[in-house]
């Protein structure tokens, strides 16, 4: 089972190594780990997708909290949240196939960001399932290269029925 955890960390050398080392040393499996700046120049946010049961999740959270430059840890258990994964994907597309691929990209609300003789570079973001669905549909054309950022996530402002609006968007 996958869980998303975010950690607000002080911008200090070695924090990323510390977190990565802790995961390795304690045998936790991570699917992705994303680090980026926040609104506060002193702090960065790590978004980690952990594979494991609830007990593993609890241990991961507690072990993260023990790392001194980690200021705040939050997990998304029982919380409604928005997740996004950004992908750049280069798809094999000869001029004859190009319209088909572009249509597919449009259906997924992706963007063609570079066009070459026999390929298209596509930018696509969304929840993980959406990104993976696109990859599956793109596969028959031939995937030349693929890069993903991994997931970032944030809880929703109001927990009630805002979910619908977002799903409609997808």
């Amino acid at each position, binding site marked *: 089972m996958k869980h998303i955890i975010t950690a607000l*960390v*002080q911008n200090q*050398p*070695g924090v990323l*190594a*510390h977190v990565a*080392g*802790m995961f390795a*040393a304690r045998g936790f499996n991570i699917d992705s780990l994303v680090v980026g700046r926040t609104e506060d120049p002193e702090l960065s946010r790590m978004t980690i997708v952990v594979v494991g049961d609830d*007990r593993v999740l*609890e*241990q991961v959270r*507690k*072990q993260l*909290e*023990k*790392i*001194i*430059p*980690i*200021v*705040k840890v939050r997990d998304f258990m029982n919380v409604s949240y928005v997740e996004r994964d950004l992908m750049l994907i280069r798809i094999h597309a000869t001029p004859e196939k190009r319209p088909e691929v572009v249509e597919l990209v449009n259906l997924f609300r992706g963007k063609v960001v570079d066009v070459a003789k026999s390929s298209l570079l596509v930018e696509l973001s969304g929840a993980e399932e959406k990104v993976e669905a696109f990859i599956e549909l793109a596969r028959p054309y031939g995937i030349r290269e693929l890069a993903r950022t991994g997931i970032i996530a944030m809880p929703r402002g109001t927990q009630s029925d805002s979910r619908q609006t977002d799903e409609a968007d997808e």
Partner: protein
Amino acid sequence: MTKKSKSSEGASFLGASGAELFDRILQEEGVEVLFGFPGGMVLPIFDRLYSSPIKFVLSRHEQGAAHMADGYARSTGRTGVVIATSGPGATNIVTGLANAHMDSVPMVAFTGQVRSALIGNDAFQEADITGICRPITKHTCLVKRVEDLGRAMKEAFYIARTGRPGPVLVDIPIDVSTSKLAQEPNLQIALPGYKPRISGHIRQIKLAAEAINASKRPVLYVGGGVIIAGASEALRELAHKGKLPVTTTLMGLGAVDEADPLAMQMLGMHGSATANYAVQDSDCIIAVGARFDDRVTGNTATFAPKAKIIHIDIDPASISKNIKVDIPVVGDAKDSLERIIEFIQPVDRSPWLEQIAQWKKRYPFTYEANGNIKPQEVIDTVAKLTDHDAIVATGVGQHQMWAAQFYKWRKPRQAIISGGLGTMGFGVPAAIGAQFGNPGKTVIDIDGDGSFTMTMVEVITAVRYDQPVKWIVLDNDYLGMVRQWQEMFYGRRYSATPHPCPEFKAIAEGFGARGISIRDRAELADGLNEALRHPGPVVVDVKVEPEENVFPMVPAGKSLHEMELGKLA
């Protein structure tokens, strides 16, 4: 968490070098003794220490200095401090830091580092020591500017001694030590992610007390956290008020007086049969400052199968890590116990206490004092001669388990034992550190020949600084604990465990200490007595029965009640 930005004396640091700042902050932190070894990248600091009022103790190996700081800290409750140079000096203290980390010992280690501009260039004696030590310390920090040094040091001491204590490493490049402060440094601690003061939630405190009151067969399972928190008195009060039998871990030895009828001594792999049976039969385990280590629980699937588990610990990550806990209380042990006591009602538990008394009578730790001198007999004799009141360090192995079983511990901070990491060689220097922290008290290291040989060079340190430590070596010419496993589980194939020893008496004398050899039972009490009365350091070499085994023993992976009892069976 906030502190004054200036030094507590209000003095200015303007114009001071990093080395001077180092010295003055150590004094402000109340450091009275510093253990270590010099080298190129700490030359400016040692130049400053030359005229500092802080006592410096030169070990013969950096590992020894680290264990001395550890022994000092365990025996006094104060923070131990060690300093080493960059590269090999720093890597030599790694074992000492890992050891302190596993047992939650407050320590601050300072290492020299190559000039900032050279870091990452594979400079002479360069090692990424903060990287190496990150997983084996509570915190590490590389100081890049002299303006940050004071704050980093203050934070290091604060982190080391608060919450669940542990070692902190501060790495100081040589140019930071030599630079002068062009402005007043900011000494304010800034640790937004560190909140060590946790008090148990009242709801959990009450739930714990209710579960204890409802229990028919409770067991207090007490670890080192009780000693660290200074909670022994509260623990004893709780045990007596609630009539709760107590077992301790290796780290918890001394938290309760083992002469107390409620005391069941140590539990676990080599624990007392009474404690292990009681845990397996209990309907309520109250774990305090303990962490359900595999040496304690045996097979976790069958650990205390009938019990509701209450766990009081300051480290939330210890809760439900190895064993699912029913009632967690996250907080300081002393505070939590004192608050639980209020809600404890006197309950008649005579059948349970009667059962425990029977087990204690039927299954005491025992040995037969015939043939060669028995190692247990040596500890028994030392315990009686010192009225169970000495500070006792050990190495790691059979002798350590026998010391745990036979010394009959009385008070907290008396046992100086490497528990979590199981570091052979710990006892020799740790006893020296404990002696520095406890002048005038009897400090003994009960050691094995294997552990003793690893660090015996530090006897020179004790001689030089006139520290009257008594090393008692239970010398069986084997690496005994490994040999015992080979005997029991590997068909007596003694691979690499025969360990012929040199004349420890002659070595001790060569080092300038007193040396005593005991080869015969008739000499035992007198020889030990002579050692204890000698005003200086003494090494006592006692040749003991080479193939004695430690019992009871829970074989790896078995349940606590499946222990092998040896001669008791």
